């Protein structure tokens, strides 16, 4: 059906365009590109955020019917809260293993194509959103520039996870659903390896 194909292609193209590999930056505004735009790009500079949002999007796409109305709003609300907290308080960056632990748990659900109850999924998405928000603090700049940056960050997170979930939800063929599970297993592998690094280092 052309409509579904347009929507799916659009969503996938925009996700791929958004995650073009960038050099990682520490937490701070990117000089010279404006506060709002810097905030929009911020999630794309953290590989752990990308991995977590990717696997959340995969799960959302797999279980769209059950979770679009609960998990997605939970993510959006909690990420907004997390970002707001960084505005009013000094928040230390969230350890990468914590984010990847959530990615690992979600990847297990994706691999098994298993949907937990909507409440558990909402809690998972909400927790992930909150931690991503808390890990997206902006250093330096005036209050208004920080606010613009945080709004840009939230909009980017919302856009990416919605588009990814919507695009993947339109995939109905067996091999496409298998592909989602394969990518989920890759995220599982990546998260497990990095967690092992963290345990060894710690």
């Amino acid at each position: 059906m052309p409509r579904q194909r347009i929507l799916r292609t659009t969503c996938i193209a925009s996700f791929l365009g958004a995650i073009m590999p960038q050099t990682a930056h520490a937490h701070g505004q990117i000089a010279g590109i404006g506060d709002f735009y810097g905030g929009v790009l911020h999630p794309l500079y953290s590989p752990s955020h990308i991995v977590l949002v990717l696997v959340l999007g995969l799960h959302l796409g797999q279980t769209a019917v059950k979770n679009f109305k609960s998990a997605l709003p939970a993510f959006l609300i909690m990420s907004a809260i997390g970002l707001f907290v960084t505005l009013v308080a000094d928040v230390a960056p969230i350890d990468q293993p914590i984010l990847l632990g959530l990615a690992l748990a979600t990847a297990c659900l994706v691999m098994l194509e298993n949907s937990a109850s909507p409440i558990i999924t909402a809690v998972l998405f909400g927790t992930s959103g909150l931690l991503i928000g808390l890990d997206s603090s902006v250093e330096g700049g005036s209050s208004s520039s920080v606010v613009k940056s945080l709004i840009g960050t939230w909009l980017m997170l919302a856009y990416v996870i919605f588009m990814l979930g919507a695009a993947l939800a339109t995939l109905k063929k067996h091999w496409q659903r298998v592909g989602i599970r394969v990518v989920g297993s890759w995220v599982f592998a990546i998260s497990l390896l990095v967690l092992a690094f963290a345990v060894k280092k710690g």
Partner: protein
Amino acid sequence: MRYIMNRQISRGSRSMRNLTSIERFSLFSTLALLCLPGLAFGHADVGSAGGFASGFTHPLTGLDHIVAMVAVGLWGAFLGAPALWVLPVVFPAIMAVGGAIGIMGIPIPGVEVGIALSGVILGVMVALAARPPLWIAAILVGFFAIFHGHAHGTELPHSANPLTFAIGFVIATGLLHMCGIAFGLLTRWRIGRVAVRAGGAAISLIGCGFLFGVL
């Protein structure tokens, strides 16, 4: 011809007019997003980009790893559904378990022998067009995946960005696997089956070369 073109154009126009608002939003926002200027990469071997590049090339540096990954894909295609999709889902996960064991410094005896044997045995399975029950195939592949993962885990450089290294490494391994599956899809033709089985025999010979120290 003009009639056909006009029909196609009007069909396209009808499609665009019939888009819902969310679809129009998606299209325009895609265009806007693709206009975002990416940061130009300078020299690749720094930071996350360098970690990704190192991780991506790491599985490609060992012929013994490459042939085994391809053999898993070949065998999966040969076995058909559901092995065709079970193996690509399960293999990276089990390999990561082996990798985690290697990173933690827990030794596994005979890792190099296990890796060489994986090429031999998986190659033989493909060459003989063996179709054991799925659980046997999964156990065999999982067993060898632990060895491969462990070898990569102990070899992972400690100075690289571990996350981007892991991303590159897992993607490269998965793509090798997919190459095997793609090659294995030739089995739908008779000549393809011969080619795939010959490929399995070649993999087995390479595995023997590593096992006996020739390679």
